[in-house]
């Protein structure tokens, strides 16, 4: 896989397209045959979480535009860039959830998405502003795997 490849997709900002995005992740990841099934499954969750957030951002902003998805494959990384045109948010100001053994933890049905992106990807970059959010998720390909 010596030639970097970049592919751009647009999906309607609707939940029924999430499974299509996950299929894209699997297809892209399978170009590196040394990537373990577990790593692909982890990355699939991370990309799905970012896309879910993008769809929700468009719903909140009442935007009917598509979500932009760029898949980039380089020699040592598989990247997914998910870009929305929502109102944006401040990643550092996300509410800290109670500890899991705190009974009040069950009061928070949301808030796990960004956590999952961070723990299931090797690199996460979030740029957000009033005109939207771009999330770049990456996993390292064979030779640089941080398999757990």
């Amino acid at each position: 896989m010596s030639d970097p490849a970049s592919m751009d997709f647009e999906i309607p900002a609707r939940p029924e397209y999430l499974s299509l995005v996950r299929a894209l992740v699997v297809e892209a990841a399978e170009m590196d045959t040394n990537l373990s099934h577990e790593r692909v499954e982890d990355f699939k969750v991370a990309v799905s979480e970012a896309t879910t957030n993008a769809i929700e951002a468009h719903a909140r902003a009442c935007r009917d535009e598509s979500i932009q998805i760029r898949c980039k494959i380089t020699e040592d990384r598989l990247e997914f860039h998910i870009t929305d045109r929502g109102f944006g948010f401040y990643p550092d100001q996300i509410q800290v959830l109670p500890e899991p053994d705190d009974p009040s933890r069950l009061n928070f049905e949301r808030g796990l998405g960004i956590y999952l992106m961070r723990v299931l990807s090797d690199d996460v970059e979030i740029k957000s502003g009033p005109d939207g959010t771009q999330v770049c998720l990456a996993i390292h390909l064979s030779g640089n795997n941080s398999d757990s």
Partner: protein
Amino acid sequence: MDFSVTVASHGRWEVLTVTGEIDMATAPRFRQRLLAVISAGVQNVVIDLSGVDFIDSTGLGVLMGAAKRVRSTGGDIRLVMSGSRLAELIELTRLDRVLDVFDSISAATEESEA
């Protein structure tokens, strides 16, 4: 596998068997079925996720919401998952500390009846 939820009684437990993927697209249907069972007065709920291929934070949120509702009335809720991927995700999010996880329906229901 298409998303589906079926409900069956196992002794004093009501078992919801879920198949397919639980994400933002299917979570509303999952939540609706769960709430219908809980609203009917069922206090002991088992959710069998062994046939679930994928779950994300939206699906985990539905589980947490259901656990809160069931426990607020003195009931109990238990999860069944034979697939290691889901169990790993539950552990990763440390939800195994607030949700009881079993590897089979019989294990989830037998223990309570002992």
